[in-house]
C-alpha cells in the first residue's frame, strides 16, 4: 500500500488509530538490551504461547494491529528491574517478570483486568502500579524517547497512530526547505553526539553549498562503552529517527541518506531494516514522497567495530569502504563529506529531536532545557547506582537530581565518589559538581565533555588511578594510529599508569604524566586523541592524593589495585586454626597451631583465599 499524499496519510492515521483503540488488551514486553539480557525473549515466547488460542478468537484483527497482541517494544527505561512487562489499557507496569509469572498475568490481568500486585515495583512501603508513578520515570521529560517502550518498534502503523510523520507532512506541505532549516536553527538544537555543534547552523552551511548533490548521514556508531542511548532509539523507535532524517533531507535537498550503525547492535540493524522496508512499502521512502516531488533513499551501513569510526570524517571514510581514519579539516564535512559532497552528519538523538521541533515549533523547544542548550538529553546511567537505566531529562538538570532523585542514589548506600561523563575520553565529575546544572557548556568547564551521554557512577570502592588506567587502555587500543601524539602518547601514559597501579610509580612520573596528557590533548589530530587524556587530567586534578598514596605509601585506598593489596592477619582475632595456611596456594602463611599466623607479603600472590577461608574474620586487606 502506498500513501501518496498528505491527505492519504491523515486518512491512514485515522484508520490505524481506530484499530489501536479497539485493543481490548495489549501486552508490552520490553525488548531493550537490558531486558533481553535478563530473559525477555522467554517471557515474550511464553506470553505468545499462552495467548495463542486467545488470538484465534480474533484472527481477523491479527494482521496489523492484533486485538490481544504481544508486542516487542523498545526500552522501557527501568532496566534495573527487567524483564519488564506493561499491560494496557490498565497501564500496569510489572517488573522482574519470570516465566512462571506469565500464566498468572494472563489469568488475572488479561482475562479479568485484575492486577498481579506482587509484580509491581516496590520501594519500602511504596507500591507503584503505573509506570509514571515510578520516580525514575516520573522525573523525566521524554521527547526523544516518547515512543520508546510505548509502541511496537516493528509496526509503522503504531508510529503513525501515535502521530508519526505529521512533522514530515508539515515540513513538506507547509514549509519551504529554508523555513525548515530556520526553524531548526531557531530552536537552538545542538548536536547530541558530543560536540554540541548547532544543528541548524550545520544544515545552513550545507544548504549554502554550490554543489547540489548532498547527503544526510546519521551517526549511530555509539562507541562509548556503557552508552546505549542511540541504540535504544534505533531499537525502540526507528521511525522517529528516519522521520528526522527525511526532514533533514527535505531541508537541504539531499536525496540520499546513510545510517551508520555500530557493529555490535544487531537489533538496531534489524529494526531499522524492518522500518525502512515498511517506509518503502508505504512510499514514505523512495520517489515522490507524499506526492510532493521530494525523493529520498535510505541506506544502512554496519560499523567496522572501531571507536574512532564514530568520528565524522572516519565514519564517512568507512561508508566509502576505506579504513576509518579521521582526516584533517578543512575541508569540513559540510563542504566535502561523504563521497566528497556536502553532507549533514548528525547523531541519532539529534535527528530524533527534529520531528517534535517542526511540529511544535522552535519556541516550544526553547522552553525546555537551558538558554545555551535547549531541549533534553538522554543519559545512560550505569555503575554503582541503584537504578541503572536509560533516562531523558531537560538540559540543565543537576547531577544530584539524576543520581539521587531519578537514579535512586548509590547502590547499597555507598558513598558517592564521582561520575565519569562523556565515555572513556570524558572526565570525572565529583562532589563539588553535584549541584551544577549539566549542559554542553557547563560540562566543558569542568574539564569533561558531555559526550554522547554515558554516565558511570563510581562509589568509594572505585580506585581513581585504576579508572584512569582502564580508560587509557581503551583509548590506546582504539586510537586509529594516524598521529603520533595519540598513537604513542596514550601508550606512554598507559605505561606510566600501569607502573603506578603496580606499585612501581615514582613521584616524577606524575609530572611526566601531566606533561604528556597536556601535550596529547593539545596536539592530537582528532577528537579521540584530544579527549583521550581527559580522564587522566581530571583525576590528577581531583584525586591527586590517591595517586600520591599509590606511589609513596604503596596503598590503594579502594583496595582495587592488586599489587598494592596487603593481606594481614589480626593476631588478636586469629585462633591459630591453620585453615588459612592450608588454603594458601603458595605457602605464604606460617605459624604454629593455636598461635597467631603471619602472612609473608613477599610470597603472597594476593589471591584472597586465606581471607575467604578464615572462620574468625581475622584477615583483612590493608
Amino acid at each position: 500500500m502506498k500513501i501518496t499524499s498528505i491527505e492519504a496519510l491523515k486518512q491512514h492515521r485515522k484508520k490505524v488509530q481506530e484499530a489501536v483503540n479497539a485493543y481490548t488488551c495489549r501486552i508490552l514486553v520490553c525488548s531493550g538490551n537490558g531486558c533481553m539480557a535478563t530473559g525477555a525473549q522467554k517471557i515474550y515466547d511464553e506470553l505468545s504461547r499462552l495467548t495463542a488460542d486467545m488470538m484465534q478468537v480474533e484472527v481477523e484483527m491479527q494482521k496489523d494491529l492484533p486485538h490481544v497482541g504481544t508486542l516487542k517494544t523498545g526500552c522501557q527505561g527501568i532496566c534495573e528491574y527487567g524483564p519488564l512487562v506493561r499491560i494496557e489499557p490498565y497501564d500496569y507496569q510489572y517488573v522482574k517478570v519470570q516465566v512462571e509469572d506469565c500464566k498468572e498475568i494472563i489469568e488475572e490481568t488479561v482475562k479479568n483486568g485484575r492486577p498481579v500486585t506482587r509484580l509491581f515495583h516496590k520501594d519500602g512501603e511504596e507500591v507503584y502500579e503505573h509506570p509514571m508513578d515510578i520516580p525514575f520515570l516520573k522525573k523525566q521529560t521524554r521527547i526523544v524517547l516518547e515512543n520508546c517502550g510505548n509502541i511496537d518498534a516493528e509496526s509503522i502503523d503504531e508510529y503513525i497512530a501515535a502521530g508519526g510523520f505529521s512533522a514530515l507532512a508539515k515540513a513538506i506541505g507547509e514549509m519551504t526547505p529554508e523555513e525548515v532549516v530556520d526553524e531548526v536553527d531557531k530552536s537552538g538544537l545542538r548536536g547530541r553526539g558530543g560536540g554540541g555543534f548547532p544543528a541548524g547552523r550545520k544544515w545552513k552551511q550545507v544548504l549554502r553549498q554550490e554543489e547540489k548533490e548532498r547527503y544526510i548521514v546519521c551517526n549511530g556508531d555509539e562507541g562509548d562503552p556503557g552508552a546505549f542511548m542511540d541504540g535504544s532509539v534505533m531499537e525502540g523507535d526507528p521511525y522517529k529517527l528516519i522521520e528526522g532524517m527525511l526532514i533533514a533531507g527535505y531541508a537541504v535537498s539531499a536525496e540520499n541518506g546513510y545510517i551508520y550503525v555500530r557493529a555490535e547492535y544487531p537489533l538496531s540493524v534489524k529494526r531499522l531494516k524492518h522500518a525502512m522496508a515498511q517506509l518503502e512499502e508505504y512510499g514514505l521512502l523512495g520517489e515522490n514522497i507524499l506526492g510532493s516531488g521530494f525523493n529520498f533513499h535510505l541506506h544502512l551501513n554496519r560499523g567496522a567495530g572501531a571507536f574512532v569510526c564514530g568520528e565524522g570524517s572516519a565514519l564517512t571514510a568507512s561508508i566509502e569502504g576505506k579504513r576509518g581514519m579521521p582526516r584533517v579539516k578543512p575541508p569540513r564535512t559540510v563542504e566535502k563529506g561523504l563521497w566528497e559532497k556536502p553532507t549533514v552528519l548528525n547523531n541519532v538523538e539529534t535527528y530524533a529531536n527534529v520531528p517534535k521541533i517542526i511540529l511544535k515549533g522552535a519556541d516550544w523547544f526553547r522552553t525546555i532545557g537551558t538558554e545555551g542548550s535547549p531541549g533534553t538529553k538522554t543519559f545512560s546511567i550505569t555503575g554503582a547506582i541503584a537504578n541503572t537505566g536509560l533516562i531523558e531529562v531537560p538540559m540543565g538538570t543537576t547531577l544530584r537530581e539524576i543520581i539521587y532523585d531519578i537514579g535512586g542514589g548509590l547502590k547499597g548506600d555507598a558513598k558517592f565518589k564521582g561520575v565519569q561523563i562523556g565515555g572513556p575520553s570524558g572526565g570525572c565529575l565529583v562532589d563539588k559538581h553535584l549541584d551544577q546544572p549539566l549542559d554542553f557548556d557547563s560540562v566543558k568547564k569542568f574539564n569533561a565533555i558531555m559526550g554522547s551521554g554515558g554516565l558511570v557512577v563510581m562509589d568509594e570502592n572505585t580506585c581513581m588511578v585504576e579508572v584512569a588506567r582502564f580508560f587509557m587502555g581503551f583509548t590506546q587500543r582504539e586510537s586509529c594510529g594516524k598521529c603520533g601524539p595519540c598513537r604513542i602518547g596514550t601508550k606512554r601514559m598507559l605505561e606510566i599508569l600501569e607502573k603506578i597501579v603496580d606499585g612501581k610509580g615514582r613521584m616524577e612520573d606524575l609530572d611526566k604524566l601531566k606533561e604528556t596528557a597536556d601535550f596529547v590533548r593539545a596536539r592530537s589530530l582528532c577528537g579521540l586523541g584530544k579527549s583521550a587524556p581527559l580522564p587522566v587530567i581530571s583525576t590528577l586534578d581531583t584525586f591527586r592524593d590517591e595517586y600520591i598514596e599509590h606511589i609513596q605509601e604503596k596503598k590503594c585506598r579502594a583496595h582495587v589495585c592488586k599489587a598494592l593489596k596487603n593481606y594481614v592477619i589480626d593476631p588478636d582475632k586469629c585462633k591459630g586454626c591453620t585453615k588459612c595456611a592450608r588454603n594458601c596456594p603458595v605457602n605464604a602463611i606460617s605459624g604454629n597451631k593455636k598461635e597467631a599466623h603471619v602472612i609473608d607479603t613477599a610470597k603472597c600472590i594476593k589471591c584472597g583465599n586465606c581471607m575467604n577461608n578464615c572462620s574468625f574474620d581475622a584477615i583483612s586487606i590493608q
Partner: protein
Amino acid sequence: MIHLTIDGIPVEVEKGTTILQAAKQAGITIPTLCYIEDLLPDGSCRMCVVEVTNNGRSKIDTACTLQVSEGDEVQTMSEKVIDSRKKTLDLLLSDHNVHCFSCEANGDCKLQDLCFEYGLEETSYEGEMTSLPKDESNKFFSYDPSLCILCHRCVNTCTEIVGRAAIDTMERGFQSVIGAAPEKVWAEGTCESCGNCVQACPTGALSMKRRKKYRAYQVDKVVRTTCPHCATGCQMDLIVKDGKIVDVKGADGPSNRGLLCVKGRSGSFDFVDHKTRIRHPLIKNKETGEFEQATWDEALDLVASKFSEIKTNYGGDALAGFACSRSTNEDIYMLQKMVRAAFGSNNTDNCARV
C-alpha cells in the same frame, strides 16, 4: 589577497592558501615529516606547528592545515613552537629503534635531521617499542616497522599518486603498522613493486635491497638521465659513489613527476657495471670465428658498406630498421629517418607497445 606576516616578513597570498604554502612563498622553511606537496595534507606528523596571533588571540596549530587570515602574525620558531616540536619528536623517538650506525638511511633521514636540529639526543620516555619483524617479502625492498614513524607518506604516495592503493595502515593504536591487505605482508597484496613508497619514506623504514652501501654525504655526483626502459622518458638521478652507480632515484621530469616504475627503479643500473657487459665494438674474425675488439670507425664502416651492398644489389626495400623501445624518442626518430632517407625504405617500426 590576504596579508599576513611570517616571522616578521610581510607576505601577500591568495585566500585559501595554507600557512605552510605562504611560508614557502616567503622563503621560510617549516619542518614537515608527512607533508606531500599537491596532496591534501595528511596532518599526522604534527611537526609543522606554528604560533599564530590574530586580534590578540594566539593559537598553535599545524601550518599544513591552517588557512591564512587577514592580519595573521605567524611565528614559526617561537618558544612554544619549538617546545611542541621537541615533544613530538620525543614521542616519535620513543618508538623508534635507533641504530643509526647500521641504518641505511643514516645521513639521509628526516627524523635524524630534525632531532639533530632540535637538540634531541634521546627520548625522555621509557616503554615498549614496536618489535614486529621486518617484512622482507617484497623482492625489491624491505619494511622495518621498528623504524616506521607512521607518517603515511608511503600510503599516500601509493594511493594518491601512484594510484595503486596497495598499502594502508593496519591494526590500531600502538600496534599500528603499514602493510598490504589482507595479510599485512607486502608481497601478498596488489603491490607492483614500483618502489615510489620507498623513495617517499623519510626514514630507514622502507629501503631498497638493490641499493649499494653508501651514505648520502659520500655521493660524488648525481647524474640526471632518462630511464632506458621505455619511451615514457622518465627522468631519473643516478647516484654515483667512487665512480660507480650505487642507487637511482626518480627525478622531477615532465612525464614522471618524481615517479618510477619497477623496471626503472630496480632494473636500470646493475648492468652498467656487469662483468659480461660489452664495452666496445667487436668484429668477427672470419678465419678464427672469434670476435675481436674494433674501433667505432671500423665497425661503422663495415656496417655501412654491408648496407650499401644490399641496397645496390637488391634495392632499398630489402632493408628494414627496427628500433628498440628502450631507446629514447630522439634516437628512434633518427633511426626511422635513416631508414627512409638513407636506405630508401619504409620498412621501419619500433617494439614499444607499452
